[in-house]
């Protein structure tokens, strides 16, 4: 795992787990930590894929032959 992913995944999930040990509502925090860990696997996969594709801008644009570009 690269440093960036460690900072995000291990950092966030471990902090939540520590919080769960310390605070009331710890069961809830642990559930969220587990869910977050799964979601970050997905988010990091997109991160890795987009690394290096520096010219790609966010957002979707379509060209319609009869009209000016429609963007959203």
């Amino acid at each position: 795992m690269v440093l960036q992913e460690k900072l995000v995944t291990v950092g966030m999930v471990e902090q939540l787990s520590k919080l769960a040990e310390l605070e009331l509502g710890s069961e809830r925090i642990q559930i969220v930590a587990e869910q977050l860990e799964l979601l970050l696997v997905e988010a990091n996969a997109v991160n890795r894929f987009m690394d290096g594709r520096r010219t790609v801008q966010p957002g979707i644009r379509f060209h319609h032959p009869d009209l000016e570009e429609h963007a959203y």
Partner: protein
Amino acid sequence: MPTVESLPSLTLAEVGERIRTRDISPVDVVRGVLDRIESLDTRLNSFIEVQAENALAAAAAAEQAIMAGYYLGPLHGVPIAVKDNIATRGELTRAGSQVLRDNLADEDATLVRRLRSSGAILLGHLNMHEFAFGVTTNNPHYGAARNPWNIERSPGGSSGGGGAAVAARLAYGAIGTDTGCSVRLPAAFNGITGIRPSIGRVSNHGVVPLAWTLDTAGPMCRTARDCAMMLEAIAGYDPSDLQTSNVPVPHYDDDLERGLEGLRLVLIEGFSLSGLQADVEAAMRAALAQLEAGGASIREVPVPDLEPSVSALLTLDVAEPAAYHGAWLRERPEEYGEDVRTLLEAGQLYLATHYIQAQRYRTVLRDRFAGVLRDADAIITPTVPFTAPPVGATEVRLETGDTVDIITAVLRYNVMSPLTGMPAISVPCGFSSEGLPIGMQLIGRAFDESTVLRAAHGYQQLTDWHMHEPSL
């Protein structure tokens, strides 16, 4: 002339035509579906609320208008229903939640206003996954909706009530909303036709959002023709929704009868037919043969860069709802169902960079699909790689032997359309050995709903999967 008992078996187009010619009365049509809802929906739970009195009053008014010569078009007098996240004036619009249990709408959603202007009669609000944030319609507040082909199976979601109601002939059409899969998945699981229009084609004004940059409403009906009629009624620019487009709305019916001849369809190499449940693969291969026999050409093309598509959709489809729900989540988290609450709470913790990378990926995927569709008319995939799982299932076992989370599993073929903004339709293309419906998806160019509707209609002229009726 059809008997009152047989009226619900007609398609939307058929019943509309008989109302136009005054063969049948809108009042009888509405009574027919209301009787059916009363006798069947205790088992299916497809509606959260039925507005029987309002529907009958609207039917009587429609009858009077038509008899006086004021005919509004093919939806006039036809009873339909909308998902519970779509506002109807003076009625509760709960989005399947407890959070919005007292949310009395002070105006119609734009799409509802347009349906009413077309003469359609609203039957009530349909069951859905809470806040449209899930794929099962296993709703903890209003009960699980069930699949009419087997009530132990899920109707899918999030517009599961619409899928079940239309399949069971409790409404001639429904409007669902689709953020990641929520019109097409229940269409496939329930054996009906459902179209997700291009983003910007249909106004979201008055629709409770899930993820702003992905959401769109779409029709769910028995046939592609019925979907075309409903789409034409609701589509078009809306000054109340800045995301809507001013691309002209065609008369979709004009293109339907052009048939399959000359249509250029493509399969994605190594993807469209891989990892499918055996029954789904067999149904897809048979459907491809029928499309070719009807005059369409089919070829395989490679489409790179698909790998992170489900991950990107999940990232957007958790981060955006987390932003929308932030205040409610802090103030009354206990009012959410467990699955939705957990996703929303976890979604608060994404980084901005995660979100932006996912939005940037959409540009990559859009370019790939636009490239393919420069030399083709539609891309074909199954809608879902498997048939409806049991009610309450949270995981599914794939053909590969892997057991995966149900959300990830159903998104495999569904994410392409919302990520790229392009329209996609799901059409019934067979049944499994267990008697469960199978859906085929056609993805088209942006704002070219006409072509996917034409392809779907052409296929439905050669097959009768869409005419099968569950025995309840």
